């Protein structure tokens, strides 16, 4: 279902576009990306975001006729997230100066969460 972008911050749009590229697993044209986005973005906006991602070095592009196809940077085993988790876990004294979005869950917490989710959907 198409929605208005509704005051999306620039970072949020980049995250959406990157998510599309990740899910696709293959190079996409800006038109493909635009089609797969849930938000209703202008073609030029999509192209701008893709170029910005390319300049930042988080997306690659290859010539495809007269336009480009974009893909995420190849990370052989997707190890970056795992490595970052290890660095985070190395925080001194089991401290919590860095607030992660969620902390660890016990088994009982997991059960409670699933109940809460089921109850509210």
């Amino acid at each position, binding site marked *: 279902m198409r929605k208005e972008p509704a005051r999306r911050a620039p970072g949020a749009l980049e995250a959406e576009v990157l998510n599309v590229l990740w899910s696709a697993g293959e190079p996409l044209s800006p038109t493909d990306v635009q089609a797969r986005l849930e938000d209703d973005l202008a073609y030029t906006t999509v192209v701008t975001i893709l170029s910005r991602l390319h300049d930042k070095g988080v997306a690659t592009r290859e010539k495809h006729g007269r336009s480009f196809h974009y893909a995420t940077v190849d990370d052989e085993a997707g190890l970056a997230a*795992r490595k970052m988790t290890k660095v985070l876990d190395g925080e001194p004294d089991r401290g919590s*100066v860095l607030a992660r979005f969620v902390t660890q*869950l016990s088994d009982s*917490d997991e059960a409670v969460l699933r109940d809460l989710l089921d109850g*509210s959907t």
Partner: protein
Amino acid sequence: MTTDLLIPLLLPLLAWPTARLVTPRLRPRPASWLLTGTCLVLAAASTAALALLTFSGLSLIPAVAGIGHWSPQALRTLSGVDVPISIAAGGALGVLMVLVARTTVRYTRWARRLSRELDEHGSDGIVVLPGEDAVAFAVPGRGGRIAVSSGMLAALNPRERSALLAHERAHLASRHHLFLIALTLSSTLNPLLRPLCSAAGFAIERWADEAAARRVGDRTVVAHAVAKAALAGRPHNGFALAATGGPVPQRVSALLAPAPRVRSRVPAALLSALILGVAGLSAETALDSAADLRDGIEVAQAGHAGR
């Protein structure tokens, strides 16, 4: 003096149940300020108490008394210094200073490692980390960076992704890392403060949750984002914690309930005054003891000069 100074050292035990009374009645932002401020005051007062006990013992040493021109015997009688306790306090103070220094060094190194790791994937703004592990956090520096793994992005729907980013942005905008540093310092200076510091940390997460809920305009979406993100992180988080009712279900329940309303300000103000009173008592006791010691020294100096 010695028994007086026990108060700042042990008051954190009282502060924790007081906090549990007060914080459910406060909204997350004032609760965060109140709890963090209380932790800092209590930590400062207990450290000051140790310093006073140490100094009172040092003041009896002839070499020190010589410099200050007071009589050690007179001072000992006047201020009721207990030498063994003073030595113990000095030992404890030394240990704490070493711990603070060591923690500072370790944190500086760790922060650099984290920053370098992030640099490999992006310079500023939103940094996406390739990988299935669901990870998301905010780091101050370079204008503030938000790191999210591709696995985390994939676990959420678009509105939930917005909620996640709004939550992390709230951490950066409100400079929560400063609160957390203050809390880590406080609990290092007095380990009895750990439960209170934990409560403050939870209030800070709730603060960011509520800010995200206002931004997204739908509390349920934020609740789902938090819950799904936690469940997505499950397989990696190896060991199961023994405690029940961890912070995540509480955050989700709070978000599924209606927003905390601003009820009558009076009860919240009274309750805040209660917890500030506890902290203030601690500080006041330490200051009183310091004044007593100073008075004792003056009298001992007068007695010494008169000989």
